[in-house]
């Protein structure tokens, strides 16, 4: 614990940098677009609309039933998408964050984990904006609201930690091996289809079902839906699945990053 003290002190000194970097990202993203911040709500809404039209018109899915609960497909889709987009955006931007900050790292001392952390935090802010889109859709579809909805932030915060861990691993690996960027893009796409975002797990063949528990995103998505759609407490499996993957990735990420960060400057 004594050894960790300088890290916290460092973090405290550079907390303003974190704020500034996040607000820079927001400004740069939405500057010079007439609708400005509205885009961050409009974008997930439009994306969902596209998927909704595809799945309802081509695949004839408008409703998913779980037991006797009827779930509107648009809400189901948007909840899954919100969580998965947070994961894929956070980890992919965190991955190139260290490389992208090369000019800074070469000239000034800054604790380097700031860069992946900032990207994950920025994606978190984006996910909060998507939440507004979700609320709009829920109102529009007259989805029943349960009191558990107040806990929507729990899976998001655990996912934040998971993303930060994965982001740290990817960011340091990418410094040494650039082609990981391309590999990871494929992985994220594959994992998306392995996560029940636009389908229910019940349609999966038996062999695929066996792999589902090993996909952390399955647990995050289902915990989020438990709170927001089904109005129930997630089972013990979901708690273990989310918390264990967050802790493992965070521990591995911090360790790997700490071990390699002094050599970053020689490779970027």
């Amino acid at each position, binding site marked *: 614990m004594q050894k960790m003290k300088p890290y916290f002190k460092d973090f405290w*000194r*550079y907390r*303003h*940098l974190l*704020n*500034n*970097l996040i607000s*820079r990202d927001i*400004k*740069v993203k939405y*500057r010079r677009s007439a609708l400005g911040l509205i885009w961050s709500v409009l974008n997930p809404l439009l994306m969902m609309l596209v998927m909704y039209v595809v799945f309802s018109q081509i695949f004839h899915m408008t409703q998913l039933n779980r037991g006797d609960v009827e779930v509107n497909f648009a809400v189901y889709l948007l909840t899954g998408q919100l969580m998965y987009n947070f994961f894929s955006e956070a980890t992919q931007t965190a991955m190139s964050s260290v490389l992208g900050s090369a*000019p*800074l*790292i*070469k*000239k*000034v*001392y*800054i604790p380097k984990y700031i860069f992946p952390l900032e990207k994950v935090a920025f994606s978190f802010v984006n996910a909060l904006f998507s939440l507004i889109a979700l609320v709009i859709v829920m109102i529009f579809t007259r989805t029943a609201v349960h009191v558990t909805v107040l806990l929507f932030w729990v899976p998001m915060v655990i996912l934040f930690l998971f993303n930060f861990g994965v982001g740290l691993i990817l960011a340091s690996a990418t410094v*040494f*091996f*650039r*082609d*990981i960027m391309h*590999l990871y893009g494929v992985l994220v796409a594959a994992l998306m289809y392995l996560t029940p975002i636009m389908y229910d797990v019940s349609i999966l063949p038996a062999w695929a079902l066996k792999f589902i528990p090993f996909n952390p995103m399955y647990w995050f998505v289902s915990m989020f839906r438990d709170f927001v759609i089904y109005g129930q407490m997630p089972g013990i499996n979901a708690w273990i699945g989310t918390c264990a993957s967050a802790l493992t990735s965070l521990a591995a990420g911090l360790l790997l990053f700490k071990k390699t960060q*002094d050599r970053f*400057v*020689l*490779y970027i």
Partner: protein
Amino acid sequence: MNIIEVRDVSMRFNMAKERVDNLKEFFIKKAKGTLKFEEFYALKNVSLTVERGDVYGLVGLNGSGKSTLLKVVAGVLKPTTGTAVVRGVIAPLIELGAGFDMDLTARENIYLNGAVLGLETAFIDSKFDEIVEFSELREFLDVPLKNYSSGMVARIAFAIATVTKPDVLIADEILSVGDFLFQKKCEQRMKELMSGGTTVLIVSHSIEQIERLCNKVAWLDHGRIKMDGPVEQVCEAYKELDPDAAAEQEARGKK
């Protein structure tokens, strides 16, 4: 008390003949057994102590390790062996404008760059006018930085970096930016800081400037300290090195 203590620092770089930065090549080269690095020492067993209030110059030819040493002191590079300790807050002026985002306006960049240097937002608020005043760019405050000339960017950067009263100021060839009036202003600001007790570590190719500003100098040659001590002695010896260069420096000094 020594404010900067560099003890027996060596800095090794692995210079791959061809740079391997992806998995595919790494595995191919590893399989073929052709993954070789050439070791190169940019600094070798360098020791240096700077006392509080010193203005310490580093001279040497290109590639002698001056900038590497500055980066080690600034904490940007971690030495392969040895230690570098700095007791106090460092303001690095290694390259002006590191951390600027060209899409943001000057106003936004002042806050961003201040944060890069570890300054508090409230502190920048209180010093904002001083920074703007010094850079003389008030009318362009809300223009994105990409529309600035490089001299204008340097003005802003210098103004932010020197607005604090750092314990140590590390400067790498920064006094060669901007027009001559601004250069004078920068030097004036440096002198103010020095008289306020700031320790300065400076790299410059202008011997004349080193002689004017510094009280101690170290001469680096191929990553080793060839000579260090009071400014007159070292600079005399350094100028002996190349008569032509010395004459040129002299001529520039008289201007």
